[in-house]
């Protein structure tokens, strides 16, 4: 049996670990609230964007636009959003797994795959594998800027328009709730005609607008923004998910630490009791022997 001193040291060490995990949980919780608000704040914009695209889309033939053009897919770019920092449970693992599956499927179809990774964790993971990474971004998740989404979207659009890539898939964690996130994949390019909005509020009769300047010009302006916004919304979703995942992971770690401390405390008490008992036995039997 371990000595009393060893057990005490162990308990102390677990306690300090617990302090760290608890602090990280609090930080993640605070960040989660902020990132959740940001993700929610982006929704009205996204919503309106869909509506406008729907409305204009009903009047012009969208397939004419290069960004809508479906080509035979020979080269795919997968954009994966992971995190810069670890200690967030399965957050990055499920993205990496999904990306590998997608890569495999595409390669089986004879397509060439390139990756674009956001987040240090994903970049580190894929660097060690047999995949070609076109670009990776690290350190931009801490202070997420809209211009980052703009830049990525612009670069992807240019590659697509230049025929360098025929399809762009986006893989990220969607924020379901504070305790649940799931990996989703979305096609960013070519743009898929938007699905009908789910909200009741938006199901109003389509308005017959005056377009200024012309529906075509509006669409030219709208499409790049649409892609940018999808990128932006995905980044926000992923960030909220990351914080939620970290909070859950750190909560579990804190609870596990508590359990271990409880168990070790019982063990420590037993060990101490055993030591006292055996000392007593020694004294009593010593006294017996003197009789």
């Amino acid at each position, binding site marked *: 049996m371990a000595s009393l001193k060893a057990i005490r040291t162990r308990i102390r060490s677990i306690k300090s670990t617990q302090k760290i995990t608890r602090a990280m949980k609090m930080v993640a919780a605070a960040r989660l609230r902020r990132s959740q608000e*940001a993700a929610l*704040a*982006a929704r*009205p*914009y*996204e919503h*309106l*964007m869909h509506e*406008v695209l729907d*409305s*204009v889309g009903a009047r012009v033939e969208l397939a004419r636009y290069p960004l809508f053009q479906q080509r035979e897919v020979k080269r795919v770019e997968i954009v994966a959003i992971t995190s810069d920092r670890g200690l967030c449970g399965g957050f990055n693992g499920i993205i990496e797994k999904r990306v590998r599956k997608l890569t495999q499927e595409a390669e089986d179809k004879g397509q060439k795959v390139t990756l674009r990774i956001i987040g240090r964790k994903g970049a580190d993971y894929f660097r060690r594998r047999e995949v070609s990474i076109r670009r990776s971004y690290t350190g931009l998740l801490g202070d997420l800027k*809209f*211009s980052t*989404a*703009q*830049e990525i979207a*612009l*670069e992807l659009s*240019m590659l697509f328009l230049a025929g360098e890539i025929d399809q762009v898939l986006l893989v990220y964690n969607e924020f379901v709730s504070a305790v649940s996130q799931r990996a989703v994949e979305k096609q960013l390019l070519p743009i898929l005609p938007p699905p009908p909005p789910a909200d009741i509020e938006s199901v109003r009769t389509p*308005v*017959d*607008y*005056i*377009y*200024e*300047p012309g529906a075509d*010009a*509006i669409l030219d*302006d*709208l499409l790049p*923004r649409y892609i*940018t*916004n999808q990128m*932006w*919304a995905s980044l926000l979703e992923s960030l909220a998910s990351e914080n939620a995942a970290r909070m859950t992971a750190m909560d579990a770690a804190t609870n596990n630490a508590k359990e271990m401390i409880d168990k070790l405390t019982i063990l420590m008490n037993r060990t101490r009791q055993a030591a006292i008992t055996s000392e007593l036995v020694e004294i009593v039997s010593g006294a017996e022997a003197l009789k």
Partner: protein
Amino acid sequence: MASLELEITTPEKKAFKGEVSEIIAPGADGLLGIRPGHAPLLATITPGVLSFEVAGETHRYALGGGFIEIAENHVRVLADTADRDRDIDLERARAALADATDQLQKLVAGTSEYVHQRSRQERARLRVELASRLSSAC
């Protein structure tokens, strides 16, 4: 008198929501004046100043590019950025403008970085213009 319901939304936040009486927006083909009862309209807006009146007070926002949608006295503005004049820090805006202008000199036109800095410059320029107009009015 009928009023307009105005909403200004950016990807980062909801910048404004409320009842206003008259709006002047920077349309792609020139300024758009909007009063209650305006016909349904969907227009692009260029980076510029959007102004409107709330209870006699004039609000001004520096807008990045975007759209404006008008339907049944409900006006929705979708902009890349929206900064209210009195929230703009003139010093910071000036510094951003100088920095963006600096960066632009080193870049080749057409690259994504160039486009990015170009839009930064434009935004900063607008902020400076609005903020200095405000401080001189005081």
